[in-house]
C-alpha cells in the first residue's frame, strides 16, 4: 500500500518537561523538591509561586544546569538537561535574584565580559550588547560603574546579561525585589515584550499581582511539593478575579504560617 500526501508532522515537545523531580541538599534533612511534575509549553510566560524555601530557586538552578537532580526527569526541548552542550545551555538564561555581575566594572564592561565568556565576539557581540541595552533602556548608562548604579539600574543590568544569549528560555528569579514602582513597571513591560518576541519565560516572585498581570499559567510550590498547576482561570475556579482572590488561594494552598 502506498500512502500519499504529506507525512504527519512530529509534535514539538514542550519546552520544559519535569517528571517526579526530587532534589535534596546534602546538609538538609528535608528534600528541596519532592516529586514535582509539570510542563511548560513554548512561548509561555509561566509563573512560579511559593513562599520562602518552597523550592522555586532550586528548580530554576536545576533548569539552568547548575545543580543535578539525582531522581526524576528534567528535559528542555526534549533533551535531558544534563546532556546539553555548552551552546545549548547558553540558550537557557538564568537571571538570579542577586546582582550577579561585577560591581567594579561598568555596565558596558559587564555586558562585554558576559558576552565574551559565552563566545560572542566582534560585531556579533557589539550587536547583542546594543540590543540588550536597548531592551533594558541602559544605553545612556554604559560607562557607569555598576556599583554606582541605582537598584533599578542594577536589576535591569542583571536582566540584560541574561538576554545576551538571545535565549529561548529565560529564568527570572524575583527580578523586581527592592526597586521603585517605575523600575518595576518598566521591568514588567520588558518581560512582556521579551515574551511576545518568542522567548519562553519562567518567572518567580512573591508579588501575586505580578503573576496575575504577567503569567498565563502558574505553578504553586510549597515545601518542595507542587500544590497546584494550571491557568489562572482554572486555579481561580473560572473567574480570573482580583489579586485578593489569588492571594486567598495562595494562602489556602500553602497555609498562612510564617516560614522564616
Amino acid at each position, binding site marked *: 500500500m502506498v500512502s500519499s500526501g504529506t507525512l504527519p508532522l512530529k509534535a514539538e515537545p514542550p519546552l520544559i518537561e519535569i517528571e517526579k523531580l526530587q532534589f535534596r541538599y546534602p546538609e538538609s534533612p528535608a528534600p528541596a523538591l519532592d516529586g514535582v511534575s509539570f510542563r511548560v509549553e513554548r512561548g509561555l510566560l509561566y509563573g512560579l509561586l511559593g513562599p520562602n524555601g518552597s523550592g522555586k530557586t532550586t528548580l530554576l538552578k536545576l533548569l*539552568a*544546569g*547548575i545543580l543535578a537532580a539525582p531522581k526524576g526527569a528534567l528535559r528542555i526541548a526534549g533533551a535531558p538537561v544534563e546532556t546539553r552542550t555548552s551552546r545549548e545551555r547558553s540558550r537557557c538564561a538564568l537571571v538570579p535574584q542577586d546582582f*550577579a555581575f561585577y560591581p567594579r566594572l561598568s555596565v558596558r564592561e559587564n555586558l562585554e565580559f*558576559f558576552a565574551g565568556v559565552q563566545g560572542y565576539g566582534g560585531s556579533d557581540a557589539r550587536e547583542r550588547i546594543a540590543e540588550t541595552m536597548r531592551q533594558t533602556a541602559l544605553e545612556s548608562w554604559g560607562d557607569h560603574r555598576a556599583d554606582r548604579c541605582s537598584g533599578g539600574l542594577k536589576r535591569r543590568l542583571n536582566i540584560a546579561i541574561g538576554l545576551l544569549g538571545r535565549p529561548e528560555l529565560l529564568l527570572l528569579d524575583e527580578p523586581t525585589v527592592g526597586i521603585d514602582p517605575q523600575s518595576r513597571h518598566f521591568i514588567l513591560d520588558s518581560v512582556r515584550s521579551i515574551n511576545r518576541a518568542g522567548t519562553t519565560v519562567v518567572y518567580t516572585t512573591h508579588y501575586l499581582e505580578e503573576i496575575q498581570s504577567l503569567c498565563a499559567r502558574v505553578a504553586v510550590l510549597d515545601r518542595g511539593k507542587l500544590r497546584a498547576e494550571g491557568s489562572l482561570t482554572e486555579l481561580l475556579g473560572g473567574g480570573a478575579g482580583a489579586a485578593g482572590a489569588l492571594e486567598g488561594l495562595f494562602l489556602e494552598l500553602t497555609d498562612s504560617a510564617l516560614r522564616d
Partner: protein
Amino acid sequence: MGPLHHLIRKEWILLGRDRHSLLLLFLMPTAFILIMSLALRGLFAGHGAVAVTYVLVDSDKSRASAQLAARIHAHPEFAAVDTPGDEEALRRLLRSGRTQFLVLVPPGFGASLDSGEPRPVRLYAAPTLDAAVVKLFDAALREAAARVYLRRSLDGLGPNPDGDSGAADRALERVDALVVSPPEEPGKSAGPTAVQQNVPAWLIFAMFFIAVPLSSTWVQERAQGTYQRLLSMGVPRWKLVLGKAIPYLCVSLAQGALMLAIGVWLVPLLGGDALELGAHPEALALMIAAVGFAAVSFALLVANIARSVEQATLLTGVCNLLFAALGGVMVPRFIMPPTLKAIGACSPMAWGLEGFLDVFLRRGGLADVAPRAGLLVGFGCAALSMAAFLFARDRRG
C-alpha cells in the same frame, strides 16, 4: 578568544581598580624591606651573631691582666661597655639587663699565676641570657686566661739553648694552628646580611597575602551568584579556577621582580647593603614561581573554605602570620631554639626563604633549590586539589 581570556582580562581590570589590594601586595613588602634592611643592618653585620656586651673591671693592672683584657676585646662579637662603679653597682647594671656580662679581674691576678694558687677571674652573666651565649662567653674568657697562663709559663722557662727568646710566641702559634677555619669561597658567606634576609622574607610574606584579594573576590562572586550565572552559561569550573589563578600568579611574579629590584637598587641608595642575586638566575626564577604557585593555591583553598569575606580575611591573616612567625620571616630561623626551628621547618614560608638563601648565600643552582621548590609545588598541588574538591561539591555555585 575563549572564556578563559575574558575571565583573565576581567580579573586584571578588577585588580587594577582595587587600590587597597595593590597597596597591600606591593607597598607593604616594599616598606617592610626598606625598614628592616636598614634597621637591622647592624644586627646582621656579624653574620647573625648576637651583639654581646660586657664590663671588665681590672683591679690588678698587671701585664697579665692587660693581656687578658686585650684578648677579650679582640673578639668582634663582644662589645666592651666602659662603666665606672663599684662591684655592687655593676651587678645591679647586670641584673637590669643593660650589660650582659661582668668580668672582675682581682688584684694580684698576674702575680698569682706564678704562685701555684692563682686568684681566679670572676664571671657574672645576666639572668635572662641564653645558655648558649653564656657558654660562648665563658669559653672565650677561659681561652684568654689559658693563653695568658701559658705565655707566662713559657716565658718563665727563659730563652732556649740557642738564645731564642720567641719560643713562647711560636708555641702559641702552633696551638692556634691546631684548629683552622677554611677561608670562605668568594661570594659565599656563612649567614645572610639584613637585605639578603629581609628581601626574600617579606617578598614571600607579601606573595602569600595574595590570598586576601583573591579569596575576597572569590567569596563575593560566589555569594552574588556570579559563578552560578557563569556555570549556567556553560563556563566550566576549571576555567573559573584558572581565570582567577593565572592573573594572581602573574601578580606574584611581578611582586618577585619588584622586590628584588628594590633590594638590588633602592636599598643601597638609602645606605643599606645591595642585594646580591647569586650566580643562578634560573634558580631564582624557579623559587619565585614555586612560591607564587604555592601562594595562589593556598589562596584558592582559603577562598573555598571561607563562607564570608570576613572569614577569608581572618583565615588568611592568621595562617600567614603563623607561617611567617615559624618560617623565619619575622625572626630569622638561625637564632631560633632547636624545637621552634624544627616546627618552623613545616612552614611553606621557611621552604621559600631557605630556597632564596640557597641562591643568594650558597650560590645554589637549580639542583640545589629543587628540593625546596618541590616542597612548595607539592604544597601548592595539595592545596589546589583540596580547593578543587571543595569547589566541585559546593552547592552555592
